[in-house]
């Protein structure tokens, strides 16, 4: 199939054929999702930024690194399967979600580490609040109520089992080293003001000049 395109890349494709398949796209052709958390600076908490579609946790980490940490300066990243994020309901107005989370007595069973995230306002992102020891996600939220409830508006809580997370390894921290230098993506690298001023001034001069000539001809 020859597309005779203006796009040389497209013309390079033309030598192969890509027949329209008979079967419809399979479910999860684009994979399930993983939630992505980014640390903007060393002393700041991790914050939820979005999702990537990926076939597994390791690939999610590799893909999230460029999808979410290629542009703005940051220092670390981690990912977790969406299915492994326990999410509380979201509250109305000023209601604090912890008011809705009932206290429970200590649950039996092995205690595991859970990461807790708070949403302080609809429209913002969930931010890491701390780590608790709990037997399950529900228990983790109860523990978080006692440890991290600041009393201020928290409209939603997420709990994630620590071992489900693919963290950045210590030796991987240099992955973001060159970000601050990549000025070619800053608006400040494209200041055309000077060139424009020079151009406008010369335009002005030539129209002034032609005005003088007219006068001189009289």
């Amino acid at each position, binding site marked *: 199939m020859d597309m005779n395109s203006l796009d040389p890349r497209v013309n390079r494709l033309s030598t192969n054929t890509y027949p329209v398949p008979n079967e419809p796209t399979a479910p999860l052709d684009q994979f399930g999702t993983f939630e992505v958390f980014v640390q903007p600076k060393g002393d700041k908490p991790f914050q939820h930024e*979005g999702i990537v579609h990926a076939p597994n946790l390791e690939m999610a980490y590799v893909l999230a690194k460029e999808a979410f940490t290629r542009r703005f300066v940051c220092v670390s990243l981690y990912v977790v399967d969406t299915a492994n994020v326990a999410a509380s309901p*979201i509250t109305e107005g000023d209601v604090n979600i912890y008011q809705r989370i009932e206290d429970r007595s200590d649950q039996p069973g092995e205690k595991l580490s859970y990461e807790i995230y708070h949403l302080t306002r609809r429209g913002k992102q969930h931010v890491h609040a701390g780590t608790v020891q709990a037997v399950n996600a529900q228990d983790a939220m109860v523990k978080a109520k006692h440890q991290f409830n600041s009393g201020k508006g928290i409209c939603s809580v997420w709990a994630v089992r620590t071992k489900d997370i693919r963290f950045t390894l210590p030796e991987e921290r240099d992955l973001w080293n060159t970000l601050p230098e990549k000025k*070619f993506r800053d608006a400040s690298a494209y200041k055309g003001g000077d*060139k424009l001023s020079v151009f406008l001034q010369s335009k002005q001069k030539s129209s002034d000049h032609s005005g003088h000539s007219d006068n001189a001809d009289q």
Partner: protein
Amino acid sequence: MYGGGNTFEGVKTDSVAQEDQVKLGEFEGRIARGEKIEPSDWMPQLYRKQLIRMIEQHAHSEIIGALPEGTWITRAPGFKRKMALMAKVQDEVGHAQLLYSAAETLGKPREQMIDDLITGKSKYSNVFNYPTFTWGDCCFISWLVDAGAIVNQLANAKGSYGPYCRALERICAEESFHLKYGHHCVIYLATGSSIQREMFQDAINRWWPPMMHFFGPADMISTHTPVLMKWKVKMGTNDDMRNQFLDMYVPKIWELGFTLPDPNLAKNSKTGRWDYTEPDWEEFKRVISGDGPCNKERLEVRRIAEERGRWVRKALKSPQAAYVPPLA
């Protein structure tokens, strides 16, 4: 990059009367208070449906929009332009990714959206159905089409749906260099050799009609859906957006010594709005329905990209996975 203007043509609002009126009242109260709607909230069917449609079309516009500029990456003149263009086009693909994710929170899987794009069921911004013949065309898109998209995006960022707003916040932050880069390219063409000036003037002459179509049909021939404005899904009329764009950019184009191919284009001091030759809305309809210069190619390239990737995705898939919509 997104024009958006024609997304809301022919919307039927009958379903609203069938909704639980108490829940509807609470929902509308939340929006009126300026509180965002999040994925787990109750929402009217029409809201969910129109949002999916709008966000999905925006996503499609980004991934298709990556093609007319992407073709110029290898040919970009010099390192400065090349690095910028690579990053810009990559951002467009990234924005598609962010937007599909936002639409997914409403319950439609990403592969369904991609299928609908390829089969022609879902639309994308009409401006990308035109070819980029020269570097000047590429610069026109980078500056002015981007500028148009930003007018829309800034408006939509104040909308009611949380995930879409979060995506737009990120998109607007990433876009800030796109617009400056585009203007920078054009300044160099304008202040350069006569070959460069003519190249851009030629591009303007060809791209101005699609640019006037960008914000969608004129208000007087559009169907209006007040409920979508009330629900902060549609944030302004097509003509409002178009006038904002003209206000901001026509002076900048004229200041560079370029002309626009519309003798009637002028700011009307009495109305405070722009006068212009009414764009050809029949042409717009024709192109957006599939009969433009590049429609077939854009979709074919997209389809081929998906086809070429099929073995890759198949090889990575695990049979046990179950679909869970994203959270936020």
